[in-house]
């Protein structure tokens, strides 16, 4: 396998496209959702052509999210299975935040934080989807009781806030840990990045190359 | 109505029986709620169903359909045997003290003089004993066993509370409570009003149902007083007007009657109509009959009506029998009628026994329907599947369907139940080529006149001589016709007492019927309407709603017949001295010179109380009749007869079940059902969301009540395994209706003569035209039998069976 000197392939084109579409949808959902959530953000409906279109589009974005996220999920779920190292890593979260990588165990393809983001995204999207169905008056209004809809509304709001939080963590981590974004833009990371953050993965990749 | 809508607020007790005002007359029922709130009135409702009226009541009791006279007879018995009557009133203002002929009697359900073959009575014995002076003998002590009061007391002694309950199914305790409340209004300052409608009339003894309550009201002194009266809640907007104007087989406008065959000349005709007073000093207003009749003939035949030809008397058709609708459709069914006109009427759905009506219409040569809407009658030949299963190819009738305007597009007057003539104005352009009925009748008449003038034919004179005094003969205005109805002077009309005084100059509109003359110098289309369009203009168009006395009479709003009088017989609201019995709700009183008050006196205004004239001036007695002499075909006192289809035998007289003189044709008698086959009592009625067969054309009303249904009680539903919303079939001996079942607590089984009787309620509104869903129509079930006196069909009590429909049918 030929590769540019000193870099490693991390994401295929398909995975990257999938990710970015998913990301875009999530952002649209967040913006349209926030517009409908808080009056001070209602102006965001302008991005979607007004309140009515925002209301129409938001649930369809949700459907799109489920589809695109399913792609990501089936690509990545097996890399996100929790192991003992993850617990150790998480126990040393202070070292993580302080960037004292020397105190952390060697990490495989994903560290515990990334795995947490993955699973939180997964569960929150599921929760948002299901609670969102109860709120989709146009298509499904007659299938739910008002009581169910009220629970749905609260759950949807809380889950939405949570997922935005997770998303902020995700974004910030990519921003803070330099060299990360190229994985999703170019599909490759430098060896140094891999050595520093995913040493175990680097070793596995090196072993593969050797063979 | 003897009184008027808003006057109901003056009542202390309202009895709704034989009607359902809350549903059929909601805006009139308002005055019941006003009476309840402001006058602390109580409301009693007696009805087979727990209606919306019942929902508003203080006391509700169920009754088996067709047993009202038993109930009312029981009330009479209670009042008389407990001495709860308004004695002064009964003695002076009714015929209670009058002595009845010794030959009169009642036995085993029959009054004297019955002829079983003719199904009719010889009514000669039902009359008063006259003295040598030509006046009726009286016993003011009311003790003579032959006086009306004692005869009545004896007649109703059989109607004990237990007997009432046995016949009607009404619980004894509730019946007694109702009697107690009713009896309280015997006090001179208390009034009870009776509100009834087709729940009383649509029986084979409908007139006697009403007589029953009239007797109660007379015993209580509740006729002629504010908040009292017998208030017939007429069904249609102008059925009062059409009746007043005599659009019936035997009538001439103003309740004059068409001559009979035997009345070959004018003097003979008049000899039985100018009633001589039966007591000294009485007004007997019908003595003026010739004035009304001649004025009518003058308005019919104009200048062609002269003294020499008895004002065209010969041109009037003479009657052998009354050709009411039941007889009309019977004759049609026999093929004896070739042509028929329906002017805004839907007989295919309105008359009993749909199958017979359908066959009758199909035997016509031509049918002309004038209507704003596409009626079922006009389309009786169309096939609408189960809803009108007809083969058009087999129907040889030519049918014309002529579009007419509706209320919004025409001006004119309507007479409401309270006898108010209210003018209305057109506000819209008619749709398409729709024309007013006046225009259509004019074109028909003008064409016929043209044909008779050109070609001759049978008796052309009345056609050619018909008065047609309209400025544009091809298009008379309603304004002109209204003036014609009121009448005008053809020569100067002078005061009879002071001939120097001219009351109306030739050509002027008359002020009222007092100015009519029998010498041909006046015209008036309808004497009781005289005063509606006077020299002062169109009185019906008046719109001053001031009601200074707060009496509810609104004397300057529109115009009320007769003479703008709002409460009939109002002289009876005062005692013999002319003082109001109830000063709080005084209508008129004698002020020493004349009668005056918030209403127009129903009395000769200057006739002092001492003169002794009675308050019921139209009656030769001057008093009201507890005993009606020979005027009712089926007896001088109401008697309980069973409906022609009854679930039990007549426990009072098993040999005489139904009304022995009711209108029944051969062929119809045979199709009455028997209780072994048809065990349930059915009754038909209107729903508040609909008006007969019109409002199913109005989308809003179709939304509010979209589909035909039948109401049954929970007990019957349980027996049949029917849940609400299931489809059921209702069968009578004449047909079947299939509809949705509405299972309700509002209809409960009754115990009648020891038997459990279930009632089935059948709303009438469905057909196969309009916005609402198609339905079968209640008249597939109803029996072809009519009241003895006025031939109203017995829609309110007949027998049916009920079956559950297994699978849904479209």
């Amino acid at each position: 396998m030929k590769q540019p000197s000193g870099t490693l392939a991390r994401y295929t084109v398909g995975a990257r496209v999938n990710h970015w579409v998913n990301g875009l949808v999530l952002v649209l959902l967040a913006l349209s959702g926030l517009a409908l959530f808080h009056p001070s953000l209602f102006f965001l409906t302008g991005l979607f052509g007004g309140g009515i279109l925002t209301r129409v589009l938001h649930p369809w974005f949700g459907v799109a999210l489920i589809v695109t996220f399913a792609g990501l999920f089936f690509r990545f779920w097996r890399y996100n299975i929790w192991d003992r190292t993850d617990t150790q890593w998480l126990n040393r979260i202070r070292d993580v935040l302080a960037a004292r990588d020397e105190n952390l165990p060697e990490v495989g393809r994903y560290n515990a934080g990334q795995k947490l983001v993955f699973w939180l995204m997964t569960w929150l999207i599921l929760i948002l989807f299901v609670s969102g169905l109860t709120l989709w008056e146009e298509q499904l209004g007659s299938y739910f009781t008002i009581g169910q809809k009220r629970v749905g509304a609260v759950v949807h709001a809380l889950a939405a806030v949570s997922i935005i939080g997770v998303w902020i963590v995700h974004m910030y981590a990519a921003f803070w840990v330099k060299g990360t974004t190229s994985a999703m833009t170019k599909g490759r990371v430098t060896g140094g990045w891999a050595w520093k953050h995913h040493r175990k993965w680097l070793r596995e990749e090196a072993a593969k190359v050797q063979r | 109505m003897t009184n008027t809508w808003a006057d109901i607020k003056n009542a202390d007790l309202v009895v709704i029986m034989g009607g359902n005002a809350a549903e059929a007359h909601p805006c009139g029922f308002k005055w019941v709620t006003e009476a309840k709130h402001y006058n602390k009135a109580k409301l009693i409702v007696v009805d087979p169903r727990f209606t919306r009226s019942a929902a508003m009541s203080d006391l509700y009791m169920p009754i088996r359909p067709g047993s009202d006279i038993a109930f009312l007879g029981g009330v009479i018995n209670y009042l008389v045997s407990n001495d709860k009557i308004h004695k002064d009133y009964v003695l002076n203002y009714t015929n209670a003290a009058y002595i009845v002929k010794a030959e009169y009697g009642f036995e085993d359900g029959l009054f004297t003089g019955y002829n079983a073959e003719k199904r009719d009575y010889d009514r000669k014995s039902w009359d008063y004993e006259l003295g040598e002076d030509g006046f009726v003998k009286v016993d003011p002590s009311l003790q003579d066993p032959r006086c009306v009061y004692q005869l009545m007391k004896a007649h109703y002694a059989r109607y004990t509370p237990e007997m009432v309950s046995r016949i009607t199914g009404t619980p004894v305790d509730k019946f007694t409570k109702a009697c107690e409340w009713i009896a309280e209004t015997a006090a001179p300052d208390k009034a009870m009003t009776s509100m009834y409608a087709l729940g009383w009339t649509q029986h084979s003894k409908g007139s006697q149902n009403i007589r029953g309550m009239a007797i109660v009201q007379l015993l209580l002194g509740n006729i002629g007083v504010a908040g009292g009266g017998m208030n017939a809640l007429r069904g249609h907007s102008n059925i009062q007007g059409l009746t007043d104007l005599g659009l019936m087989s035997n009538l001439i406008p103003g309740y004059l009657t068409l001559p009979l065959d035997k009345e070959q000349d004018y003097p003979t005709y008049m000899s039985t109509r100018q009633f001589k007073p039966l007591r000294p000093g009485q007004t007997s207003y019908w003595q003026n009959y010739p004035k009304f009749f001649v004025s009518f003939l003058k308005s019919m035949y104009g200048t062609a009506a002269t003294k020499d030809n008895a004002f065209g008397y010969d041109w009037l058709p003479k009657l052998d029998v009354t050709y009411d609708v039941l007889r009309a459709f019977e004759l049609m069914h026999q093929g004896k009628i070739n042509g028929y006109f329906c002017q805004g009427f839907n007989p295919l759905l309105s008359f009993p026994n749909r199958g017979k009506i359908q066959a009758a219409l199909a035997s016509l040569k031509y049918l002309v329907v004038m209507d704003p809407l596409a009626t079922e009658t006009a389309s009786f030949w169309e096939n609408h599947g189960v809803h009108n299963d007809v083969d058009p190819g087999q129907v040889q009738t030519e049918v014309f369907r002529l579009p007419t305007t509706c209320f919004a597009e025409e001006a004119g007057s309507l007479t409401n139940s309270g006898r108010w003539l209210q003018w209305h104005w057109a506000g819209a352009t008619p749709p398409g080529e729709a024309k007013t009925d006046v225009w259509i009748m004019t074109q028909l008449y003008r064409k016929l006149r043209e044909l008779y003038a050109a070609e001759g034919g049978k008796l052309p004179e009345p056609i050619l001589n018909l008065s047609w005094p309209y400025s544009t003969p091809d298009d008379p205005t309603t304004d002109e016709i209204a003036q014609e109805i009121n009448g005008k002077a053809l020569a100067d009309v002078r005061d009879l007492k002071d001939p120097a005084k001219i009351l109306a100059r030739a050509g002027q509109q008359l002020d009222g019927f007092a100015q009519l003359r029998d010498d041909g110098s006046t015209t008036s289309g309808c004497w009781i309407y005289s005063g509606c369009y006077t020299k002062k203009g169109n009185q019906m168009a008046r719109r001053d709603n001031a009601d200074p006395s707060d009496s509810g009479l609104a004397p300057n709003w529109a115009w009320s017949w007769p003479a703008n009088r709002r409460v009939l017989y109002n002289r009876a609201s005062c005692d013999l001295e002319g003082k109001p019995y109830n000063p709080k709700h005084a209508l008129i009183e004698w002020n020493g010179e004349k009668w005056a008050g918030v209403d127009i006196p129903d009395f000769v205004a200057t006739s002092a109380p001492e003169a002794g004239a009675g308050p019921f001036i139209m009656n030769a007695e001057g008093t009201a009749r507890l005993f009606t002499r020979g005027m009712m075909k089926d007896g001088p006192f109401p008697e309980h007869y069973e409906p022609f289809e009854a679930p039990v035998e007549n426990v009072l007289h098993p040999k005489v079940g139904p009304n022995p003189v009711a209108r029944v044709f051969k062929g119809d008698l045979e199709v009455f059902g028997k209780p072994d086959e048809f065990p349930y009592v059915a009754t038909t009625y209107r729903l508040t969301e609909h008006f007969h067969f019109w409002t199913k054309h109005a989308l809003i009303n179709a939304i509010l009540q979209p589909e035909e249904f039948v109401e049954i009680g929970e007990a019957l539903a349980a027996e049949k395994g029917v849940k609400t919303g299931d489809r059921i079939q209702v069968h009578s001996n004449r047909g079947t209706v299939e509809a949705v079942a509405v299972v309700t607590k509002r209809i409960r089984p009754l115990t009648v003569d020891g038997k459990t009787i279930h009632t089935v309620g059948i709303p009438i509104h469905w057909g196969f035209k309009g916005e609402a869903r198609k339905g079968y129509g209640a008249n597939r079930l109803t029996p072809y039998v009519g009241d003895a006196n006025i031939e109203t069909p017995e829609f309110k009590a007949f027998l049916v069976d009920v079956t559950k429909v297994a699978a849904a049918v479209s």
Partner: protein
Amino acid sequence: MSVLQHALDLKQSSATSGMAPAGEAVAVAKLIDISRCIGCKACQSACLEWNERREEVGVNTGYYENPHDLTENTWTLMRYAEVEQDNGDLEWLIRKDGCMHCADPGCLKACPAPGAIVQYTNGLVDFISENCIGCGYCIKGCPFDIPRLSQADQKVYKCTLCSDRVAVGQGPACAKACPTHAIMFGTKAEMTDWAGQRIEDLKERGYQNAGLYDPPGVGGTHVMYVLKHADQPEIYSNLPKDPQISPLVDLWKGVTKPFALAGIGLMALLGIVHYVRTGPNEVAPEDEEQARRTLENPKS
């Protein structure tokens, strides 16, 4: 009357804060006196006619209610309950259902679209269709289950209390039509006073529990009922005994909103603080060197 001239000035508007204070107006109310109501549906008819709404012609399902429920066109509906009393006597309790015009309207609270739901200073709560986005949040906010979403135009509708008529000094179409004056309209004070007279009459007739339904849980309502059995409003086709805006809706539209935004803001802030304090997490040249070695010799 000058104070009344501002009757249809806005008091509250959905998803809008900091409104200019409106002129004072006298609170109005519609009083539905069930003891005088004959259930004739004149109000339903007048409502359809005045508001130019119509329905598909339905079916009979075995009950008098038609249509079978409130809809985007049927803003008021007669509901019928046959209730047997202890003595076996029947009562037919007929209730005109429709918007109660709560003083504290749950629909308005829930609505995210500015100006789609407004409350006028006289108390009427009105849906302004051109601002409605059809989200249906009002449906969840309403404690009485009143608003209905139109499948035709995806906007929510309910009784406006005929704000167009009230604006020109007329009463609502239903009150105008009501044959027995069971529906009255006037100032809330007058209506309360009149209700008192009616309750007195009912008590005289033996209805000891007669009373006024003006539920405090929603701040009182501008549509009130006179009930013969005010102690059991639920027998009137499930009229809620103590209606309140659902705690879930309070949670959703109450604390959740500021806390959520604060939470999101806080997350972002923490990121910034962390970044400022910790600086970028950069890959050092020695890491690259280590990686190169590893890739060349994975066993090392």
